[in-house]
């Protein structure tokens, strides 16, 4: 289990990670989600003892990384696939890593086999494609057969085949009972891979919940209704305890947006029972990306103002059973 307590990292005046507390539960794939520059990589480097936190603390099974004995057998990590000497062969790269933790030579062959690089292991790593480098990085992470694995943006820049491979591979690792923390800026990707989510923006925790809750909340539906008997329908829906909003942005006249778990069938039948004419009845689903952007919108470090302001107009139903630290609210 990885536990962060009030983790903070400052570089001069910029705060990369701001009082971040979270838990990565064992035996699951946890997605570490946030826009670019949210502090995901910095956090991962602090977990691995590469960067020293300005304040706060992060421990792996109660221990600081620097106190781990043979750390590769405890926690494997792929932070950057390009962290390989381009003129060294993949086998030699893994060989020195294995030697550093007194792992048997067979572990190198096993790791190469697992990621499918055995036939090209003698080639210099600089000649590898990004997909192959990524596999080599994963081989390095798996070398010591660790219980905990850390991957930083592993699908970035990969072709579809590579993405599917990484996705299935991570699920396989979790099914073996390993703890996997994988960072990404793509919610749609995480919704396919991760069971739990830690969402951060501008170094702050935005949400920690199960992916299912997060996605349910994010992809909530609205029903859009247009009718000539506008006031009549609005009153009717209010009587049914349904939350409505008025959407008069379009030229076709005012429309009603009905929120909550309602279907077009229900609204249609309700209108028919009261003899209300409907001109339009459509189900609108907010995309995961929109929802994610709305949640992290305020916390994106560099953004084009107009575009995001528009996206933030999308309204979402309130969360159900999810702990959410909204906006700048401090944890604890």
């Amino acid at each position, binding site marked *: 289990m990885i536990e962060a307590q009030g983790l903070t990292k400052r570089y001069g005046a910029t705060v990369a990670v701001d009082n971040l507390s979270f838990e990565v539960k064992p035996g699951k794939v946890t997605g570490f989600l946030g826009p670019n520059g949210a502090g995901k990589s910095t956090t991962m*480097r602090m977990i*691995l*003892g*590469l*960067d*020293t936190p300005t304040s706060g603390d992060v421990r792996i099974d109660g221990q600081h*990384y*620097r*106190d*781990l004995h043979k*750390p*590769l057998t405890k926690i494997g*990590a792929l*932070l*950057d696939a*390009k*962290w*390989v*000497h*381009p*003129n*060294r*062969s993949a086998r*030699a*790269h893994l*060989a*020195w*890593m294995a*030697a*550093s*933790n*007194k792992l048997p030579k067979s572990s190198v062959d096993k790791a190469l086999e697992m990621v499918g690089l055995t036939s090209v292991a003698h080639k210099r790593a600089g000649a590898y494609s990004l997909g192959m480098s990524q596999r080599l990085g994963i081989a*390095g992470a798996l070398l010591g057969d660790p219980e905990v694995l850390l991957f930083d943006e592993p699908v970035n820049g990969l072709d579809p085949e590579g993405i599917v491979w990484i996705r299935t591979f991570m699920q396989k690792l979790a099914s073996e009972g390993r703890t996997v923390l994988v960072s990404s800026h793509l919610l749609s990707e995480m919704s396919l891979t991760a069971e739990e989510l830690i969402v951060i923006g501008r170094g702050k925790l935005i949400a920690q919940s199960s992916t299912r809750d997060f996605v349910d909340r994010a992809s909530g539906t609205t029903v859009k209704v247009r009718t000539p008997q506008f006031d009549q329908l609005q009153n009717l829906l209010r009587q049914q305890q349904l939350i409505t909003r008025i959407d008069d942005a379009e030229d076709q006249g005012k429309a009603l947006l009905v929120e909550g778990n309602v279907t077009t069938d229900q609204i249609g039948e309700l209108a028919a029972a009261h003899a209300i004419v409907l001109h339009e009845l459509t189900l609108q689903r907010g995309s995961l990306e929109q929802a994610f952007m709305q949640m992290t919108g305020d916390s994106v470090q560099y953004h084009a103002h107009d575009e995001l302001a528009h996206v933030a107009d999308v309204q979402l139903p309130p969360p159900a059973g999810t702990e959410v630290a909204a906006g700048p609210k401090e944890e604890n």
Partner: protein
Amino acid sequence: MSVITVERIKLFSTRSPWWCMVISAVLSIGLAALFLGFLPSDEKPRATILMTQGGAQLSQMVMMVMAALAVTTEYRFGTIRTSFQAVPQRATVLLGKTAVVAAVAGVVGVVASFGAWAIGNVVDGSADLAINTAAEWRLVAGQGLVFALSAVIAVAVGILIRQSAGAIAILILWPLLLENLVQLIPKVGDDISQWSPFKNADSFLNQGQAFGLAGEPGQYALSPWWALLYFAGWAAALMTIALFTASKRDA
């Protein structure tokens, strides 16, 4: 010692260290052949052992470049982070690297100096180049120690600078230019020069040698072995600062 194995694998699994080693040895031996081979025949009998070691400084530079690159390429390609991830005790990692690089430089130094001495004997049979005195043994065998200690300095500079071009520039300009230029400062210049680290490495090698055609001996502040110890002190001090810095800062 697993860190020694690690650094041995790292150093010998890329080609550039091999090139540096070969170039280093060839420079010493080749220059000795040229220096003695092209002597006019009337001067040939006056050649000395010291003259066979004329290329040593250049060879030493090449090994310092190799030593510095052993660190700076790790920073350049990010493998230093993988290294610290595998062994979080950073000083242990870096000392392992220093030990391997210094040992390699020492061996190359000995091969280069004895090779140069041997080729001198081949191209100039008329001179007395037999190694008889303790001072002569110190000159030829001692190159190994000087190479090893200058490699330690190079690793320390590499750790502190983290960048190949900068580290190499410092390592070349320091012994070749800086320590000679300070001599030009009036009044104190000579004293500063005599207490410069690389001048003391020279002092360790050159004291008590027959200069012959190789010019005049310089001024020495310390006796040979104290001079070497002084040079080693610089290496140890720089390495301590480097290890402290690397342990504190973000990788």
